[in-house]
Structures are given as C-alpha cells and as structure tokens.
C-alpha cells in the first residue's frame, strides 16, 4: 500500500517538478539573454571606441557596415595613439583634470557634509526653508546659470602668493570653486545623516563633545557609504566638464582633458585619433569605477538613491 502510494505520489509530482524546472530554466535563459543584450548595448560602443582606436580612419569607415567594426582585424597599429601624443599636450591635460576633479571632490565632501550636518542636526530658524531653497536649485540647469556665473567669477578678487588680482578667468580655481557646493550632495548627506540616531549626539554632548566633534568623530565615520557615493557622483561631472572650461579657460596649460577632444575636429576629422584620445581619457573613470564598484553599489543601495 505504502509502496503504491509512494509510486502514485512520485508519478503525480514528477510532471510538476519537471514543469517547474523548465519554467526556472526558461526564466534563467531569459534573464541571461536580457543581461547579454544590456551588456551589448552598453559595452559595444566602448568596444567600438577601443577597437577603432587601432585602425586607420579609412578602415574605420569601411568596417562600419559589418561586424568587423567591433573586431580587431585589418591594419592595426598604435599610430593613432602616437598621433594623440604628438597633437595634444596630453599629460598636461590629464594632470589638469586630476587636479580639478580631485580638488572638487575633496572640498565638496567637506563643504557639503558640513552643510548637511548643520541642516540635519542643528536647530535654527528657517532650517526647512534653507533646505527647500537648496533643493530648488536642483531644477536649474547649469547652462542657464553659465553666463551670470561667468560675469560673477570675472569680478571676484583673488589673493595668493603672487599678490592680489581681480577676476578668476583662466585659472584653476574658476574650474573648481563653483562646483564645490552641490545641492544633490548636500541632500544625499542630509538624508544619510538623518538616518543616524540622534541619541548618539546626545550621548556625546553629555560627554562634553561640541558640534564639530560630533560631526568629525561620530557622524562622519558612520557616513562611509554616503561619502563614497558623493565622491563618485562629484568626480564624474568634474572629470567630464566641457562647457565651463570652454568659457573660462584660455591658456592651454590650464585646459582639462575633455576639451582636448576638440583638437581633433578639424576640417578633416581624425576619427582614429579621436577614438584613441577618448579611450585614454575614459580609462581613469573606468578604473575608478571598477576599483570601487562594490562600495559604490552598496552605498547607493543603502542611501536610497536609485536611478
């Protein structure tokens, strides 16, 4: 009897099990195909850029109509890379971009976290209004502010080792300072700080800590994911700056890498060199992302920022 029942059970559950497995397999295949398609959509342009950087201009275009555009076939060489270094002061541009991006990130982390801390932890009148005004600036595109900003930075004074000067045009600081304070970064920090229990502040206050001590020793050490997110989200636009440097930088020795791509757009465009240059200036961003990929994803997930 038991055997019979077992047999019946086996014979009735077997088809269900198979169908479930099949459904699972189909879902796996669909997900894999979807992932593959997404990989291709985002990866192929990068692959095309890198592969084309090794091809002569005329071959880039003759390969365009076929899959060869994505394959390292034909007349491959480093000629375009030699051309890039011959045509553009690449090391200088790269250094400028590093100076501008890293300075913007570091100063941005300090300023924006402090602003967010004040808004999140201190009690003062107009707190919500200030936060609202800061958030409202998010909807103003940079392009609409570019000209007034240009006028403004052109009238600002500056004092350094060379003495007093007026007007910030054609300097490093004009490429850094306007982008330090950032509404989105302040909001990210604010949101994260708000999730840290205020009891910690109270305990620290009892122990004699002031606001700066609470900021430096309690809140910031707990805000690692927010720091990573803001660092990367500040670095990318700083590295990709194009319009603003065009407007405010005149000397070649102060130009960032992104503007350098215009050097190749003459009447006869050097497509291979453009691809080589684009490959080189993309590498630092890719390396940064890959190196900190895990913490970036985790921090975005934990700070509730989703695209």
């Amino acid at each position: 009897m038991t055997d019979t029942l077992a047999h019946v059970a086996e014979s009735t559950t077997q088809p269900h099990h198979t169908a479930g497995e099949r459904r699972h397999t189909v879902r796996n295949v669909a997900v894999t195909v979807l992932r593959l398609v997404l990989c291709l959509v985002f990866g192929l342009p990068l692959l095309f850029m890198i592969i084309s950087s090794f091809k002569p201009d005329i071959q880039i275009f003759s390969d365009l109509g076929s899959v060869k555009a994505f394959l390292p076939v034909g007349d491959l060489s480093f000629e375009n890379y030699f051309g890039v270094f011959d045509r553009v002061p690449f090391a200088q541009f790269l250094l400028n971009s590093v100076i501008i991006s890293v300075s913007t990130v570091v100063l941005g982390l300090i300023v924006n976290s402090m602003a967010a801390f004040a808004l999140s932890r201190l009690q003062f009148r107009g707190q919500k209004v200030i936060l609202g005004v800061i958030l409202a600036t998010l909807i103003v595109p940079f392009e609409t502010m570019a000209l007034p900003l240009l006028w403004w930075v052109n009238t600002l004074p500056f004092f350094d080792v060379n003495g007093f000067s007026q007007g910030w045009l054609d300097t490093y600081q004009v490429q850094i300072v306007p982008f330090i304070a950032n509404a989105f970064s302040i909001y990210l920090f604010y949101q994260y700080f708000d999730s840290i229990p205020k009891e910690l502040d109270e305990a620290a206050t009892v122990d004699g800590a002031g606001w700066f001590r609470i900021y430096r020793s309690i809140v910031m050490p707990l805000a690692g994911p927010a720091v990573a997110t803001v660092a990367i989200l500040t670095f990318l636009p700083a590295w990709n700056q194009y319009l603003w440097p065009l407007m405010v930088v005149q000397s070649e020795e102060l130009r960032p890498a992104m503007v350098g791509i215009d050097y190749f757009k003459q009447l006869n465009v050097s497509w291979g060199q453009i691809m080589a240059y684009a490959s080189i200036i993309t590498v630092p961003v890719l390396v940064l992302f890959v190196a900190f990929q895990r913490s970036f994803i985790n921090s975005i997930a934990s700070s509730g920022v989703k695209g």
Partner: protein
Amino acid sequence: MISRTIKRLAATILVAATPLALAACAKGGSSASSDSAGGGTLTMWTHNAGNKNELASIQKIVTDFNGSQTKYKVDVQAFPQDSYNQSVVAAAAAKKLPCILDIDGPNVPNWAWAGYLAPLEGMDDTLSKFLPSTVGKYQDKIYSYGYYDVALTIVSRKSVLKKYGVRIPTIEQPWTAEEFDAALKKIRDSGDFDYPLDIATSFTGEWWPYAYSPMLQSFGGDLINRTDYKSAQGVLNGPEALNWATWFRSLVTEKYVPLKSGADPAKDFMNGKSAMLYNGTWTAVDTRKKFGDDVVFLPPADFGKGPKIGGGSWQWGISQNCSDAAGAMEYMKFAAQDKYVAGVAEATTNIPTTDAAAAQVKGYEPGGENDVFREFTKTFAVVRPETPGYPFIATEFTKTAQDILNGADPQKALDQAVKNIDANQESNNYFE
C-alpha cells in the same frame, strides 16, 4: 570589507588632493590677463590648436614680428576650432577679448556690429590685392583679412565618369542642371554605388549655409535681399528659391543623395560608397593620395545663374577693447606680407589669397594642380550676406533646408524662414 575600501578611497583622495589643491591655488594666481597687459604685450587668439601646421605658420609670423622690433611682443594662445567661437563670445561677455584674434569670415559683420572688432585702418592698398572673399567688410569698412580661402567642389573619378559616359565639366562649360540630373540618374540606375552623390548632409553648423546656399543662388534666389539687407522677402521664397527647394528635395526622393550622410562622407567616397562627393577643397590631399591622377575636382553645376560656391574662411582682426590698437595694427600690417600669405596657405594646403603668394606655393602656381581651386574661388565665390543678422539667417536657413530635405512643403518652409528672418532683422532695427 566595504568600510576598508571606503577608507582607502578617502585616504587616497586626501593624499592626492592636498598637494593638488595647493598647486591649484598657486597656479591660479600665475595666469596672465588675456588682453594686452601693458608692457607692449599683445595677446593673440587663434583657432588652430590641434592643427600643428597652421599653428606653426602663424607662430612663424609672430616670431618674425617680435624679432623685427622691440616695442611690442605678440603672445599666441591657441584654441581648438570646434569650440573657438564659444570661447570668444564668452570672453567678449567678460570684456576679456585679446588684442588680435581670428574670426570665421561670415561672423565678421556680426562681431563688428557687436563691438568685438575694430576696423583695420590704412590697409586698403595692401588688401586690394587679396581675393575679395578673404577680406571681411561691414558698412564699407574693412574689419579683417585672411591668408586663404577654400572652395567647394564636386570630387569624382575620371574612370567613373567615363564608365557612365558623363562629360567632365570645366569652368568655362560647367554642367547644366539637366546634365547634372542625367548624370546622377545614370549612376544611380547602375546600382554600382550606394548613392551617386554625397553632399555631406551629416555636417552641422555653418556647413549648411556655406554649402547649400550657393545652390540657391545659382537658381537665382538668395538668403536676403542684398540691396539693403532688410528683408528676405522674394529672394528666399520667390519662384527661383522654390525651384531650388523642389530640386533639393528631389535629391533625396530620387535617391541621388542619402538623407543623412555618414559621419565622414569623404571617407565613404574613398571607400567607394558614392561616385561623387560635394565637399571642400580640404579633401584634395586625401583623395589624391587614394586615387592618384584618377581623381578630378569639378565645378558645381549651373542651375541658371552660373555656378556658385561659398566664399570666406578664417580671417584676422583686432578687438575693440585692445588697449594698444596701434601695436595691433602694426602687427596686422606686418603679417599681411605675401610671404606670410604663402606660408600659411602652404601649411594648410588652402587657396592663397594673393597672386604673388600663389606663385610661391607649390600646386597653386598658374597651371599647378591646385590652380583650379583658385579659379573656382575667383570665378564662382559668393560671400555670405554681410549683415550682423547673418548668424540668425544661417540658423534659419539650416533649419529650413533640413525640413525641406525631410519632406516639408517647400513653399511653406521658405515662407516661414522669410517671416522669421524679417522679424529678426526688424526687431534689431535692421542693425543700424
């Protein structure tokens, strides 16, 4: 693991940033002012960053000038061409224009009217020897001059034209509209090419008015009435303009040209995708390299009023806010010598503006392989309208021509363009 990574990130950034931020501030203070900063230094801006040959030829003139006297020193700052205009306009807004700068020819009237440029005094005799299309004028005053011009041409191959029995046109006997259409039809019907002609519709910006308004002018139309530069009524929407628009659209409907060319039509031509290429003489070097003696540079077709090509390329002028205009003028006069015209034209392989310079540049001497380009410019060049409203007209024409190619009703599109252009001229009080 994560916190260790974040700590590492923070430490890396901090370590890197400290010296960099210090360097940034130190460097920031050392940058020089962009206009003539006293002490006889004249700042010069050029669009030649990335174009080593042309930049070197300009630098040679500057070095010679600086060595020829001790009163002034010209300091060159080079910008990439693609973003040069934005840089100049931004500098003008900040009142930081340099003393000497180069300008794309069609922008000269607008920049003169806007107060960016000062007239060039006392150069009339020298510049009378320059090709008219290389001298920038506004309201009877000269504001700029260029060392070279470029010409539009139809590039093809003798072997291809011979194969399809198409006559090779000359300056004296260009193709008629019917001959041109017949040639396009014959090549299209052969099926040997993706398209018989590529007119580079993928190019953006100034290309559209530069390349396609001469076709309109050959039909008998124009961008604006040039008697007083007040209205486009009748010239941009009259029967001649309508004929142009109808023909222009037919290029696409008849599959003579691609609606949207590839990113680089010259490369497509060299790869055998098109039989003919409508482009500038800057393609000559590469196409000769590819096809040797087989390549041929043809005048554009005559649609009724003779073949026309665009005139005016990069030119040099001085800014109105230059604090040492006398020094800038001294440079401008020094730099207008034939040997410098020849030097820059040779470096760019473009058309030298004076006869004396042409005789010094290999290929442009009478009978040389490039002499035909100079003849095209001398015979067919039409400068773009010398009105400060030109940038608006250019944008409006580009939009209209694109609409027409895409199938808009030609008459309606042209009427709308006229309405917009006239409104702009009027709202600016006709730039008086």
